[in-house]
């Protein structure tokens, strides 16, 4: 799957790696700033004071 994606990216090896880095950074920031904050609101209230 990922090897197929890597082959689909245009350019030589260095350009491909650069694109992968940018894509990863994008995915991680979407997770950190949109997905995870939302997911947290879905967790139920714990019965006692935790952590």
């Amino acid at each position, binding site marked *: 799957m990922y*090897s197929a994606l890597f082959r689909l990216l245009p350019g030589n090896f260095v350009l491909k790696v650069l694109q992968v880095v940018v894509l990863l950074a994008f995915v991680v920031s979407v997770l950190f700033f949109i997905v995870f904050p939302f997911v947290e609101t879905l967790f139920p209230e714990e019965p006692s*004071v935790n*952590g």
Partner: protein
Amino acid sequence: MARASRTSRPSFIQVLGELLITIGIILMLYVVWQLFVNDPLVSSTQQKQAQQFVADKEPSSKKFIAIKPNLKQGAVFAKMHVPKFGNDYERLIGQGTFQKITLNVVGVGHYLSSDWPGEKGNFAVAAHRTSHGAPFADIDRLKTGDKVWVETNDSWFTYEYRQTKIVKPSEIGVIDDLPKGMNGAIIGGKYMTMTSCHPKWSNEQRIIVWLELVNSEPKGSGMPAELLEAKRR
């Protein structure tokens, strides 16, 4: 073998394997986010929010909600200053200890069943040890001689450190008016109890810090001199 798979379509098992690895990485990233990304963000937000409540009644400052029975959960009625946690350390105290209403948002939560600051009995609060700003991350560093200042709408209360104890989460007597397990506690004493999780990163036990009221003064003349000095240190 590598050459053969290079040209062929990925097999079902291969895609499934990569998806499972991806899910695993995302789950680990959630932990990284909660502990190393969200925690400092929330911490600085809590500090900034606390600083908007200014000691002197300046027009620009936000006001604490006056203390009265049946205060709404999450209502901010006080602020605590703990120089031991950092020179400028200030955190708001909200009513109740529900995580989503008070602990994860305001910072420090006041146990509904416990007394108000400065009163006879026990003013008991809880806060996270790790995650969500971790207001009580350094609670274990409080030692003899350390002081905690609690600021309300109209007063300053100074509490002095007395004792630290590690207990099971079920030992709720520690926030009683006569704190269970506190050495030398007497009926009618004016105590404060800080509670948090123990050890760090764990939910197994609770760390309890007991303090005793040593001074209370009405607001108006600004921050108590001793606190000002402690903040400059």
